[in-house]
């Protein structure tokens, strides 16, 4: 017998001999919705509050002002990489201001060394969670490959107010139809509590997280 058959047989044997009755279906009395309604002004306020608690930088803007807000968030960097599916109008102002805009295309993906040398990355997002201050990326063309948001030290992330849900279960249910997409849940800049359990922001991931929350004017 191979290891697979032996392990599975050991599992079955353990269950048969344990005398534990099959458990009742799991109780699921927890909340599905959050304390704030999805996509409400309260949800956006709570989301911003939680993000700032993680020491992320948050800027509220409108879709008309977004290119200017992007330019402001990139004012002090030389270069930014964007995924191929990102709305090109978002970077017009920054490009005009002299920021080099690199596009990561699946036909000509940038090398890790190239991405490591870029100062910032600009992406969209899939969903955001107010209660936990979390942004979820699902690797679609407006967010790009996972490595894009990992190597540059500044991540500028655009979240539409209409993407902000209240709770974790609301977000999971929104993501569940596409479990095969690689997900990255981001809650603030990279951090560690490994030294005396003191939280320090900035280890391996982007040390500078800037979130642009867009409310349609």
């Amino acid at each position, binding site marked *: 017998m191979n*290891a*697979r058959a*032996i*392990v*599975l047989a050991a*599992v*079955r*044997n*353990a*269950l048969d001999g*344990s005398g*534990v009755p*099959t*458990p*009742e279906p*799991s*109780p*699921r*009395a*927890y*909340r599905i919705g959050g304390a704030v309604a999805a996509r409400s002004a309260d949800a956006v306020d709570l989301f911003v509050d*939680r993000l700032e608690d993680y020491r992320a930088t948050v800027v509220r803007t409108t879709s008309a002002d977004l290119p200017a807000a992007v330019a402001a968030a990139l004012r002090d960097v030389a270069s930014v990489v964007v995924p191929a599916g990102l709305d090109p109008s978002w970077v017009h102002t920054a490009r005009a201001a002299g920021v080099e805009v690199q596009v990561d295309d*699946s036909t000509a*993906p940038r090398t890790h*060394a190239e991405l490591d040398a870029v100062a910032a990355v600009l992406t969209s997002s899939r969903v955001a969670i107010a*209660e*936990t*201050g979390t942004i979820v990326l699902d*690797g679609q063309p407006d967010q790009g*490959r*996972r*490595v894009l948001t*990992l190597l540059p030290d500044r991540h500028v992330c655009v979240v539409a107010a209409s993407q902000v849900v209240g709770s*974790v279960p609301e977000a*999971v*249910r929104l993501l*569940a139809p596409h*479990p*095969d997409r*690689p*997900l*990255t*849940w981001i*809650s*603030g800049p*990279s*951090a*560690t*509590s*490994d*030294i*005396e*359990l*003191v939280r*320090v922001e*900035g*280890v*391996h*991931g*982007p040390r500078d997280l800037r979130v642009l929350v867009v409310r349609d004017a």
Partner: protein
Amino acid sequence: MSTHLGMPTVRPMPAHAPDEPLRWGQPFPAAAHDTLRDTQLRANLRTATRTIRDKRLAVTAELPDWEDLRDAGAGIKASAMAALPELLEQLEVSVQARGGQVHWARDAAEANRIVTGIVQATGAREVVKVKSMVTQEIGLNEHLAAAGIQATETDLAELIVQLAGDMPSHILVPAIHRNREQIREIFDARMGDAPDGLTSDPAALAAAARAHLRARFLRAEVAVSGANFAIAQTGTIGVVESEGNGRMCLTLPRTLITVMGIEKVLPRFEDLEVFLQLLPRSSTGERMNPYTSTWTGVTPGDGPQEFHLVLLDNGRTRALADEIGRTALHCIRCSACLNVCPVYERTGGHAYGSVYPGPIGAILTPQLLGVGETGVLDPHDPAASLPFASSLCGACYDACPVKIDIPTALVHLRDRVQHPPGRRARPTVWSVALGFVALSMRSRRTFRWAGRIVTVLSWVLPRRVRRLPFPGSLWTASRDLPPLPRQTFRDWWSAR
């Protein structure tokens, strides 16, 4: 173990490298005796556990449905265990359907062989690692080193532990036994490219680790990770972390090898909504940890293009067969039970002699090893002493996000150590003494006579006995004998 320069300033903790990750050092009472003498360690632990306890209480109190989430977590884990064979088969199919390869390992040696073989097939001589309890459990780094492959731990605390030549002493913060000044010394002595004039400021130490590891991440061809959960229905694997070292390992290399215990499987994708609330709030006391990554097999053009999942038993089926002890397999490795445990806070993790310390380790380690089940039971086996390493105060049960009744499991395992099924335990002073107690309580008559003997002794012995002759000295070593009563309770009662 990686190469050490052998600087005398950094002394590994424990002093001698253990042979077995799950069973090393002395039995708990002797080991605790040693660690309790380390006042620096106790100060480090007191500060750290108090900080994390307050944070955990603040963020769990924020959720009005925290108890409902705990019930759901416990229920999902119990039903996953009941359906484990089907879930594992389903997980295998889901992972393979998305281009991943699935391997099965009966024990640590088999898992190490599989991982080493995969790394060798890629031709790589070094691997980067995400913090993982299960690869600590199987001693993977040492095994890879023996095959000429260097494994670099990338989690900050694991890096500290690896550089110092220590064993981890906490599930979440393996270097909790080291304070900032000690960590500065370790980096200074053992990290080749530590900056000159490195200070003990945690931010400076974290920056030094970032610089040290960035080049390794960029050139790594193979990464090894554990898994916080694996979804049977979809084949999705998840890793929960803080620093971004996990994302680096899960994204940059061409080949990813994930080793997971078979108990980590969850039935459905939606189950994540429970565990992604329970885990971060219980472990680091945050509303959400900075980064969580999930992936399903291989994603073309994004991340590793070769994915291997190693499913490990290593004693888990043995624990599963025990109707009470099996709840230890529900553990999601948050470490809340360590942080609230009065015993752990004082003795530290190394006293437990296992990579799984604290209350959960006290019930998990002996079961993974099969203590009290097979072979001749040695009452001096370090792992057999672990179920006794508790005051049974119950704080761990209250803190556990999946409601593992650790005190009940501890008592159950104590009984199993004393009375292993189907065989006689070697008698100890303790078991003989308890045998007399049991005898005296057998009937009303014997109990009355036992009481009379004690009252007679109370006139013979001095009022205060501080030290009994051996074997009674084992008992009086840490306490006084209470004054013997002059009258039994029954006599006192009938005289009223």
